[in-house]
């Protein structure tokens, strides 16, 4: 079963626009929600992460919004740049086992110049 559902599968945004990627989870035991960015030929790189005791976390142009009651969280990329073009994965883990991540299927983001 897919414990973390991610949408959309792909996304095209114009330079300067806002990119929004959504994830939903099923397991209420999840207590850590990171987002990873992956460029072709590279491993995933941690972008930003949130715990369910806060509803929003912002780091630079990247913001995570978290809705615990709906079991949903999303990544917002403000002022999207062509260099942001990559595959983005949401993930979740539980019980302090942050090494054991359950990933979504990924979103391929293309930012046009």
């Amino acid at each position, binding site marked *: 079963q897919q414990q973390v559902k991610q949408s959309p599968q792909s996304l095209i945004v114009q330079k300067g626009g806002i990119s929004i990627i959504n994830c939903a989870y099923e397991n209420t035991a999840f207590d850590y929600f990171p987002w990873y960015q992956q460029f072709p030929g*590279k491993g995933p790189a941690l972008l930003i992460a949130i715990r369910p005791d806060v509803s929003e976390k912002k780091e630079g142009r990247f913001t995570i919004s978290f809705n615990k009651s709906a079991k949903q969280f999303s990544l917002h990329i403000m002022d999207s740049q062509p260099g942001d073009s990559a595959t983005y994965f949401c993930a979740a883990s539980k019980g302090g086992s942050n*090494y*054991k991540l359950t990933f979504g299927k990924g979103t391929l983001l293309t930012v046009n110049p």
Partner: protein
Amino acid sequence: DAGVTQSPTHLIKTRGQHVTLRCSPISGHKSVSWYQQVLGQGPQFIFQYYEKEERGRGNFPDRFSARQFPNYSSELNVNALLLGDSALYLCASSFSERPPYFGPGTRLTVL
């Protein structure tokens, strides 16, 4: 500082063969985990080792095994390769319970 390193970068094997993938963690990281990333999918957790002991195992068959050495480097072994084992194998290291840092992966192709 060097990140997580993996070798080889690419590997081609035939069905039924055995493969060994290697990983060196970030200096100071004692935890190593392995993930399988099939094309078009997110990584799937295979194993985690901490201080040379297996601490977690994902839903993978016994053909998959791993170990961690005294210097915290690790090997992933896959026996009796199947076509479906073709994937990018990612190694990640972490400090204590912090989130993992991933290496560039080993691309395994099974023919």
